[in-house]
């Protein structure tokens, strides 16, 4: 599904990666590793089409856009969890049923917070609202940049399970995390930096 050829990115005179080539098919997971500042986020943003100052080729064979979760929580403080999630998913999926939204929020352990505005949530809860999209999306490619940051231990376990299911069902997963990762499916690894 994803074909990357000779990707080179230079920021501020620092070569982040040079002539990077790889390809990723359905049912494959790739974890991008490297210490801080080695260009993991930059790579994922390039693949998501959010950063364009690079050389080389990125080819997606996809029907719809990938699902992207970045460093920012991606939720509006003024809207409630339900409203945020409905809008975020409707944007990409066309239409979502209210029940599905409630179910997804319950999956990320936000039962009881459905109608709380995201501005009065804790760091981890806000991130969870965004991650609840993983339970609603039909996107076949997921691009997740440090999805576990600010999430507690049991939350991480649940997310890992969801990712596992996605990959086993033939999805594509691109992931950055500095924490330990326990997926049952095979995870390829791409190391940036020296």
């Amino acid at each position, binding site marked *: 599904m994803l074909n990357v050829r000779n990707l080179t990115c230079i920021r501020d005179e620092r070569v982040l990666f040079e002539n990077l080539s790889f390809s990723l098919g359905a049912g494959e997971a790739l974890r991008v590793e490297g210490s801080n500042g080695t260009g993991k986020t930059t790579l994922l*943003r390039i693949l*998501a*089409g*959010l*950063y*364009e*100052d690079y050389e080389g080729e990125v080819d997606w064979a996809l029907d*719809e*856009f*990938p*699902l*992207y979760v*970045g*460093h*920012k*929580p*991606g*939720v*509006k*403080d*003024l*809207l409630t969890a339900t*409203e945020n999630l409905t*809008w*975020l998913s*409707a*944007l*990409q*999926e*066309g239409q979502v049923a209210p029940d599905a939204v409630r179910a997804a929020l319950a999956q990320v352990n936000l039962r009881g917070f459905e109608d709380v*505005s995201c501005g009065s949530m804790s760091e981890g809860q806000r991130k969870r609202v*965004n991650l609840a999209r993983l339970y609603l999306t039909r996107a076949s490619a997921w691009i997740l940049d440090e999805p576990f940051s600010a999430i507690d231990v049991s939350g991480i376990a649940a997310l890992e399970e969801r990712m596992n299911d996605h990959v086993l069902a033939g999805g594509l997963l691109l992931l950055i995390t500095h924490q330990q990762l326990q997926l049952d499916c095979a995870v390829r690894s791409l190391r940036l930096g020296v």
Partner: protein
Amino acid sequence: MKTLLMTISRDLKVAYRNPADVINPLVFFVIVISLFPLGISPSADVLVGIAPGVIWVAALLSCLLSFELMFRSDYEDGSLEQMTFGSGPFILVIMGKIVSHWIMTGLPLALLSPLLGMMLFVPPPGLTALMLSLLLATPTLSLLGSVGAGLTVGLRKGGVLVAILVLPLFVPVLILATAMVQTGIQGGDYTGHMLWLGALLAIATGISPLATSAAVRISLSH
């Protein structure tokens, strides 16, 4: 089309949650206008002469201040970058945001304007012209302003940079609109002005959404 309506309804919902975003530009409009009698002269003769200019400049400025809010909070919390992944065309999202901006800013300004005109002693035919000019020209302001807002989102420069980028573009609107109000005050016929303002609106509708969606994409990718 659904993308458009969805975006408008979401933005209006956010505004409803936080009505200050709608009310503040209005209050600002009123305050700026009331500074002029204080700073210049309270006499009716002087005021009616400067009224069209003062009201229109105040309307421009309060639109200006609100452009900043058009994309900024969406940028900061990451929803703007999510919008580029939408299944509908991105330009519809942008148009939705422009329309809701107008509903929240231009429309209330236009509706409020006769009251302020009265405060500055504008006679009734002038009041009609004033309101019509605002109804017809504030959409152009929202359209042009969106380009500036899109270009500067994420630059943490406050409203000043947007102002510099778009104020020169507003000059024709200002000139035509104030001329229209002045004609109205003198009891003249201002159909010609209205046609011209309509033409400007058409041009802006043609260009701005395209330019803005390009601008927003550029701002996101850095």
